[in-house]
């Protein structure tokens, strides 16, 4: 029975990892292509949640989780065009500062617009409750969430690996100078990558709003875990991030099972160990730009 309990925690951890993935993948993509550590990524996650609550009031949950990420992706265009673009070739500390500042501005803006109190949000009735498969208990909502993440993941993988758009992005990650030499401007691609990245973060916010607290600092809460996932996974690696997200979810679950007090610390210990053994992360590629 003990083994069954453990397995339940592992499976639950995988589901949770799927949610981390939505936020971490975009963060990793933006860093890989633009070389910018986007500390404002959490703000887009928060905006995704707030937008979806507003839209839910008028159109319901279904349209909200679609429209909200699209709206935030549009904001992403402005963010890339007017802010991020100036910092691709600048000293990394500048982009860190500007995105950090932006994260604070966004948090305060949310506080001014929607107030400091958390906003209520509920799971739509059809996804309430749990499903029991064999010995395992799953939240119906999280199973749905996992399916959504899988579809998004597949779509992003296809986009990066099976389209000419993806070829340019991947080439841009590894050899931006060669891409330029071939006469391709990376900038429009970068805009698209940022749109995609912040859109996914917003999607995470929209889907997680009903089961977490929607409050102004929610972005700051998620960004640390997302960074841990990206660092463990290794920069520039799609599957690295995927594996790291799942690993972080599982390690946290198992630790809480055996040693609850260390639950939140476990993911940092994991990061520490991975960096000790493999400084570039699990599947990180050797990228000239960052080494």
């Amino acid at each position, binding site marked *: 029975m003990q083994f069954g*309990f453990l397995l*339940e*925690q592992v499976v*639950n*951890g995988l*589901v*949770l990892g799927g949610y981390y993935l939505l936020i971490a993948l975009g963060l990793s993509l933006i860093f890989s292509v633009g070389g910018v550590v986007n500390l404002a990524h959490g703000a887009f996650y928060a905006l995704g949640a707030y937008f979806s609550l507003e839209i839910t009031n008028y159109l319901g949950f279904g349209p909200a989780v679609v429209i909200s990420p699209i709206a935030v992706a549009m904001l992403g265009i402005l963010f890339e065009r007017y802010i991020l673009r100036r910092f691709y070739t600048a000293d990394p500390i500048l982009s860190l500062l500007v995105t950090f500042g932006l994260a604070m501005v966004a948090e305060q803006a949310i506080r001014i617009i929607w*107030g*400091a*109190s*958390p*906003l*209520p*949000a*509920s*799971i739509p009735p059809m996804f*309430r*409750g*749990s499903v029991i498969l064999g010995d395992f*208990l799953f*939240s119906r*909502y*999280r199973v749905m969430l996992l399916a959504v993440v899988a579809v998004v993941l597949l779509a992003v993988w296809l986009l990066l690996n099976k389209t000419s758009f993806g070829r340019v992005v991947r080439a841009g990650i590894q050899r931006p100078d060669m891409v330029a030499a071939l006469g391709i401007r990376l900038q429009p691609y970068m805009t698209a990558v940022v749109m995609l990245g912040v859109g996914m973060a917003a999607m995470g916010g929209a889907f997680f709003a*009903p*089961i*977490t*607290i*929607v*409050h*102004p*600092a*929610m972005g700051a*809460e*998620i960004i640390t875990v997302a960074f841990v996932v990206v660092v463990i996974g290794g920069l520039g690696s799609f599957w690295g991030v995927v594996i790291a997200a799942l690993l972080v979810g599982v390690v*946290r*679950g198992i630790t*809480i*099972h055996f040693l*609850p*007090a260390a*639950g*939140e610390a476990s993911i940092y210990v994991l990061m520490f160990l991975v960096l000790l053994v493999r400084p570039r992360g699990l599947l990180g590629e050797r990228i000239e730009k960052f080494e």
Partner: protein
Amino acid sequence: MTRFNRRTLLKASAAFAGASTLGFPAISYGQAEKIKIGHLTPLTGFLGALGAYAQLGMRMAVEEINQAGGVMGRQLDVMSEDSVNPATAATKAQRMLEQDGALVLMGETNSASALTIMQVAARNKKLFIQTGARSDALRGKNCNRYAFHTDIPNTVMVNAVGKALLRDNMVKDKKFFGLTADYIFGHDLLAAAKRFFAANQGNLIGDELIATDVTDFSPYLLKIRQAKPDVVCSNLAGNQVTTLIKQYAEFGLPYPIVGFNLNTADAWAAGEGNLAGIWPTVWYHTLDLPASKTFVDNFTKRNGKPPDNHAWIEYVAFKIMAQAMNETKSTDTDTLIGYFEKETQFDILKARKAYFRAWDHQLVQEAYTFSPKPKGQAKDKWDLITLGAAVPNANEPMEVLNPTKEQNPCSL
């Protein structure tokens, strides 16, 4: 246009200079100096939403006091800041007393921060009216002469809910599984809960300490399912409770849930249909008393939403402070302490008046329990819960829910 000649101009200048040296200082001496109060409350982090409400309540009280002529004819001047964390809270409290000229400190919701502010107040021999922190230790083993505590302590919350549980036959021989906030407040609440279970033959079969920044409770919920308790009991704090309520509803576990702490702002944030069980509160805006209703109406008019329990407590705490200064005609720390220690009665918008117990400085008052309203009965999004009758009963002394002298190691 009048033209001045040189002499008139000189005379006028001399008169002006004379008036400046003599008259103006007289005028400024005549204008009473403002009474400065330092106010700290968490505006960020897991208690941030409560602090925001506390500030609204405080502002309303100060405005009313000042409009009514202030305190001893002097206006209140409140500096209110985010207390952030225990270390920052202490630094800010020290600065407010030392550099900004605060005569009194007020506020706080976080028990850990309240403790450090209490120490600063004692070092500086200045009064600290502690509003929203509920840890027993603050008015127990860590009590000090300069701190007075307005909110109900953990033991009262446990006893209030405990009475309801005993009434519903939900304690004796029942298996409880606890989830506890991992800091002074949670530990303290768990200790009070354990005392209650031990006294009434309840069994605590499991308890998990949960860090205040945890946003996902799913691994803990699985552990609860594995433990198969009869009742799940929450000793969590701030918006932790909101997350628990939402995710508990999400997983649809069959065990009834009760809690020994929940603030109304956090209950509102849970969303319709998620809240279940019995919880304690110090005050709720649907309380059916004229004074309470007037406060709620004025607050709602001002802020566009009803007050939560922290808005209420800040409001009454500032009114208590103003009353004390007005009646003693003093801002002197020892005089004010003496006034409170006489167990002076204060109107706190409840049926019975409240007073600070002389030996532990706890405001003794009525408490309530609440449960969620059945679906479809809420008038608006704030009207989510049904308030139980005030405890203790009108024929019992108000002190019965508080820790007794034997239970409370405070010595002032």
